[in-house]
């Protein structure tokens, strides 16, 4: 069809047109459909984005981060936990350790690029800096504290508004928790839903049981004025515990906490187990358990915030900006290299380094993440979830492609089923996970029953 980039999908008596985000009756004649297409233009930048992505050769791409609004720092690959699904297989004893001077050189460069954004976009939004990745950001507490205070001082000296975020395993004593509460705007604490699962999955090197200490950290942070998320990583064969986890999370922490649930990605330390029991894992339905848990928790506790990062919540032009073509969030690693995506382990895209007191961005490099992104951007366009997923996470695709667990298909199927569920619910007139349909009146087009897919929240 002229101007149509994406495939249509049939839902009962309706056709879903993802280019226009509308439904209309499937028994309409060609002339009526043409009239609908004339009235409702394509609301999809697929062609322009595709052209932009394909202008680059991923085997030799020139990368120059421009204006920036955010960046990340991974201070260390060491960790005092031994989580049984850790994609980085974090241990202790890594000798690579970045110096504070190198962190501040990187941050100075980021602040300059934030200022460029401020001048061009006339935006005073704070510069967002994240501490996560590798191992545990607070592992070397002295270094972590120095880095935070050094960054804060530099931001103050240059009058740059700052927002700090951290992901932590939560094994923190009171003074450390107080420091984080005082210095950070957002904190994600990893806690696997309930004591038995937490203690099974996330043991520390000093004590097998971490649940009580981590829960204390969460309770202490809840009293502070910051954005707190409890992140639960869940093995597929633990999905049936999700409602119990909901009871424990909201029962222990109250209904204001944000609960984020992420199925295990079979990489790193998770790979061994995932390979052995892959048939059992592949047979588990995350979506069914997730939707039941959301409904259960909201019925019992009122409106509570539950989400999963594998379901992108909104229409998007691209999956994310962590590819070299956009380089929206550069990350500094302990070996002083700068990469595009903190989730990438074996297949990092290294775009620069801190060297000799300066940030150097390389003229050219290979970007396997971007290559995968280009492939999926085209390959996935016939999928019902495409307007919301745009090919999905390229790092997870790369990981799954090399993994013998065949979980890549499982994740794709889960995302497709999610969006099919959303669309079916919206079509029934429900407020369906943040979406609904609104009737559209078109002059001269009768009985087409055109419905526009719209955000409710």
């Amino acid at each position, binding site marked *: 069809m002229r101007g149509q980039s994406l495939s249509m999908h049939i839902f009962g008596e309706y056709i879903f047109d993802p280019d226009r985000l509308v439904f209309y009756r499937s028994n309409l004649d060609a002339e009526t459909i043409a009239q609908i297409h004339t009235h409702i233009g394509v609301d999809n930048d697929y062609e322009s984005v595709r052209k932009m992505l394909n202008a680059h050769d991923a085997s030799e791409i020139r990368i120059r981060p421009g204006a920036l609004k955010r960046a990340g720092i991974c201070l260390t690959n060491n960790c005092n936990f031994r989580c049984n699904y850790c994609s980085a297989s974090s241990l202790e004893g890594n000798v690579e350790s970045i110096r504070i001077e190198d962190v501040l050189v990187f941050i100075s460069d980021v602040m*300059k690029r934030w200022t*460029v954004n401020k001048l061009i976009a006339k935006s005073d939004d704070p510069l967002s800096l994240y501490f996560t990745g590798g191992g545990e950001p607070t592992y070397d507490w002295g270094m972590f504290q120095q880095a935070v205070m050094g960054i804060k001082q530099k931001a103050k000296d240059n009058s740059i508004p700052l927002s700090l975020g951290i992901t932590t395993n939560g094994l923190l004593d009171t003074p450390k928790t107080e420091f984080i509460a005082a210095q950070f705007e957002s904190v994600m604490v990893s806690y696997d839903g309930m004591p038995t699962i937490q203690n099974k999955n996330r043991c520390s090197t000093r004590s097998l049981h971490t649940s009580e200490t981590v829960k204390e950290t969460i309770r202490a942070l809840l009293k502070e004025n910051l954005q707190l998320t409890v992140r639960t990583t869940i093995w597929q064969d633990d999905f049936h515990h999700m409602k119990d986890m909901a009871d424990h999370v909201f029962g222990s922490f109250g209904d204001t906490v944000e609960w984020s649930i992420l199925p295990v990605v079979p990489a790193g330390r998770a790979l061994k187990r995932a390979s052995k029991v892959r048939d059992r894992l592949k047979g588990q339905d995350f979506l069914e358990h997730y939707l039941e848990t959301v409904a259960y928790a909201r019925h019992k506790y009122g409106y509570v915030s539950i989400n999963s990062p594998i379901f992108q919540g909104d229409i998007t032009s691209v999956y994310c900006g962590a590819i070299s073509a956009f380089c929206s969030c550069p990350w500094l690693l302990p070996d002083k290299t700068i990469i595009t995506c903190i989730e990438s382990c074996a297949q990092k895209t290294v775009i620069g380094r801190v060297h000799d007191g300066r940030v150097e961005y390389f003229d050219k490099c290979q970007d396997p993440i971007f290559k995968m992104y280009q492939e999926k951007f085209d390959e996935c366009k016939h999928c019902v979830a495409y307007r919301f997923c745009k090919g999905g996470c390229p790092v997870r695709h790369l990981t799954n492609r090399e993994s013998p667990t065949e979980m890549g298909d499982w994740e794709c199927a889960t995302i497709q089923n999610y969006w099919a569920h959303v669309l079916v619910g919206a079509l029934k007139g429900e407020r369906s996970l943040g979406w609904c349909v609104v009737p559209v009146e078109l002059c001269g087009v009768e009985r087409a029953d055109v419905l526009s897919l719209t955000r409710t929240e």
Partner: protein
Amino acid sequence: MKINGVGVAVCPMHVEQVDSTFIMHNPVTGKVIMLNRTASLIWDIIVDHSEKKSDICTRDFVTRVVKMFDTEDLKEGEVQEDVEGVIAAFFGAGLLRME
């Protein structure tokens, strides 16, 4: 003001500073220019003299740059070349214009 006896005007720019780096935005062309440490010093000197309406010559810039780096390895001839290059670049980038 005059640089080496030639009348020069500073073009209106939005200027921000992060550490020792000036970041300039030309509101007319939309261009953004980030000055390195040496260029930032030279720009700072020019703006200072422009505000005071006082004249300056290449020798003055060279003296300040050599003092900033504070090393015996710097050859004044090379510094003079660099200073002249930076000032020419300022004209090329629209930061300065002849009066």
